[in-house]
């Protein structure tokens, strides 16, 4: 269906010039969800009735000539760890399976103004995973090959965009959870600088690393979505009170004289197709006038263990709140209050969540705190310093998002360390709070999408968007579209 292939911006232009109605866009998306969700499993909750009502209101506003935001009326969906008022927000966990938030997350609230929300998207349980296989509601399947994973943890957010089940989506990224699924599903995703999108209403996993961001079909769409979701929010004490730019202004200009670093360590273990596509994409950028050098950042080899210690430690603390008292699941049979906590958490959390809580609790426990948690925080300082030094000379870093294309469902679930090891290109970005973007840059011999990662300085989103948009104006990889 042609309507579903439009980018969010193209759909908005057709909507606001009255070529299509909001009801038509919404119905087309809902029909696609009905046709595809059984096999892809991208949605946990579909808000059909509400979406059609919202569409009707927006069509009335357009008919009345009311001024609206650029993406107003373009149907979107939200990862299920971002609270939506009156709409179940499960975090893909049995623990929150019946949780209906009494408020909107900041980002959800911003989009809801003149917005059509199609529903809530599947993910790894509590956003802990790289494959979207840990969801209590079942794995998400990659629209390019249903036997493969979509990447995690925002697998539903990426698969929905790829399969035309939403024009754009919100995800969250703690160690690569926007960029990895964007890469595996051939869509464009951005993890913003820490503090630019309020975390108010985002179910906490690792508070010093978590960040909400957009997934869409193009860098242009991502810029428009960024305009809607960034800003200072007094409900999040880490939300930055700065002047936020108009990100769409970055969609002009070229990459001439942009300085790009290729960090050798990010290519370690990359398979041949990924290595070749990413290097070809960088060559494309240098052909367009950018400069590129290969450099080394040896500290990169320590980012994965530091990430898993820090994120699991914060998770063990954040998830202590799930006690079966105030909201969420409570076990039915128990002996006393303490036993209620044990049984509730045993029955409410899945295996991966328990492993992370255990690892974090271990790293924070007396006797191991200095060797693991404090050590990881010191390594965090060293990683930040490493990036600072690179960004003295370079405007951005280019790398693969993941060493391979989408792997098979079940391929890595038996070995947590093997699963964690894949995240080596993405976790450093969260450790240092930097912006990171994933955009399609090729396909392997099986036709599976390959992602290019661009890493920027703090608040370097505009540089990333400029480069990504210039790249997408010159190439067609982002038009891959698995929806046909």
């Amino acid at each position: 269906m042609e309507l579903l292939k439009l980018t969010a911006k193209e759909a908005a232009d057709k909507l606001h010039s009255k070529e299509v109605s909001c009801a038509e866009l919404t119905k087309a998306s809902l029909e696609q969800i009905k046709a595809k969700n059984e096999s892809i499993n991208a949605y946990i909750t579909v808000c059909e009735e509400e979406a059609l009502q919202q569409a009707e209101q927006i069509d009335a506003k357009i008919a009345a000539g009311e001024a609206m935001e650029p993406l107003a009326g373009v149907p979107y969906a939200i990862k299920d760890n971002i609270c939506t008022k009156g709409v179940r927000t499960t975090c893909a966990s049995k623990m929150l399976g019946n949780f209906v938030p009494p408020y909107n997350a900041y980002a959800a609230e911003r989009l809801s103004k003149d917005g059509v929300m199609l529903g809530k998207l599947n993910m790894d349980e509590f956003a802990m995973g790289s494959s979207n296989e840990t969801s209590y509601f079942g794995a998400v399947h990659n629209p390019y090959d249903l036997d493969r994973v979509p990447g995690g943890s925002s697998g539903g957010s990426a698969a929905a965009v790829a399969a035309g089940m939403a024009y754009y989506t919100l995800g969250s990224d703690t160690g690569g959870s926007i960029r990895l699924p964007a890469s595996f599903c051939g869509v464009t995703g951005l993890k913003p600088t820490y503090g630019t999108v309020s975390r108010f209403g985002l179910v906490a996993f690792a508070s010093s690393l978590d960040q909400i961001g957009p997934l869409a079909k193009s860098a242009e769409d991502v810029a428009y979505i960024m305009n809607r979701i960034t800003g200072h929010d007094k409900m999040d004490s880490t939300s930055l009170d700065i002047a936020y730019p108009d990100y769409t202004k970055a969609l002009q200009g070229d990459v001439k004289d942009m300085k790009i670093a290729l960090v050798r360590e990010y290519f370690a273990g990359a398979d041949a197709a990924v290595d070749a596509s990413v290097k070809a994409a960088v060559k494309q950028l240098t052909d367009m006038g950018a400069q590129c050098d290969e450099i080394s950042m040896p500290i990169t080899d320590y980012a994965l263990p530091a990430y898993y210690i820090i994120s699991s430690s914060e998770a063990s603390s954040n998830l202590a709140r799930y006690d079966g008292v105030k909201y969420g699941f409570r076990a039915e049979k128990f002996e006393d209050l303490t036993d209620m906590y044990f049984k509730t958490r045993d029955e409410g959390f899945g295996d991966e969540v328990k492993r992370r809580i255990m690892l974090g609790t271990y790293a924070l426990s007396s006797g191991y705190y200095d060797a693991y948690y404090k050590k990881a925080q010191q390594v965090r300082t060293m990683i930040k310093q490493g990036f600072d030094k690179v960004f003295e000379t370079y405007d951005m870093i280019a790398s693969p998002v993941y060493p391979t294309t989408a792997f098979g469902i079940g391929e890595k679930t038996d070995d947590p360390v093997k699963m964690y090891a894949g995240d080596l290109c993405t976790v450093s970005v969260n450790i240092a709070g930097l912006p990171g973007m994933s955009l399609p840059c090729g396909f392997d011999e099986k036709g599976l999408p390959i992602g290019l990662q661009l890493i920027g300085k703090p608040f370097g989103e505009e540089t990333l968007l400029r480069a990504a948009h210039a790249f997408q104006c010159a190439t067609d990889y982002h038009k891959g579209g698995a929806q046909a």
Partner: protein
Amino acid sequence: MKITEKEVDYVARLARLHVQESQMQRLTQDMGNIIAFADKLGELDTEQVEPAAHSIVVENVLRADEVQPSYAREDIIANAPHKQAGCFSVPKIVE
């Protein structure tokens, strides 16, 4: 570092997680592998390095202590798994 079933049991208790007998061996093995993976951090000399809890400079955000509108009691309590007389209900803890 090698981790024993006894340590796993101890950590599980701290985390208020109940490890079923049938899962103990597997969890101990997984924990051991993950911790061995994290032991790589020990290779680095960090003696002179300040730990970083955040990637950005984070300061306390203060505001005046003023009464402001809050959520309705029934909206908040609506999600409680057990409630009674407008309150959260838990098992008896004092006889």
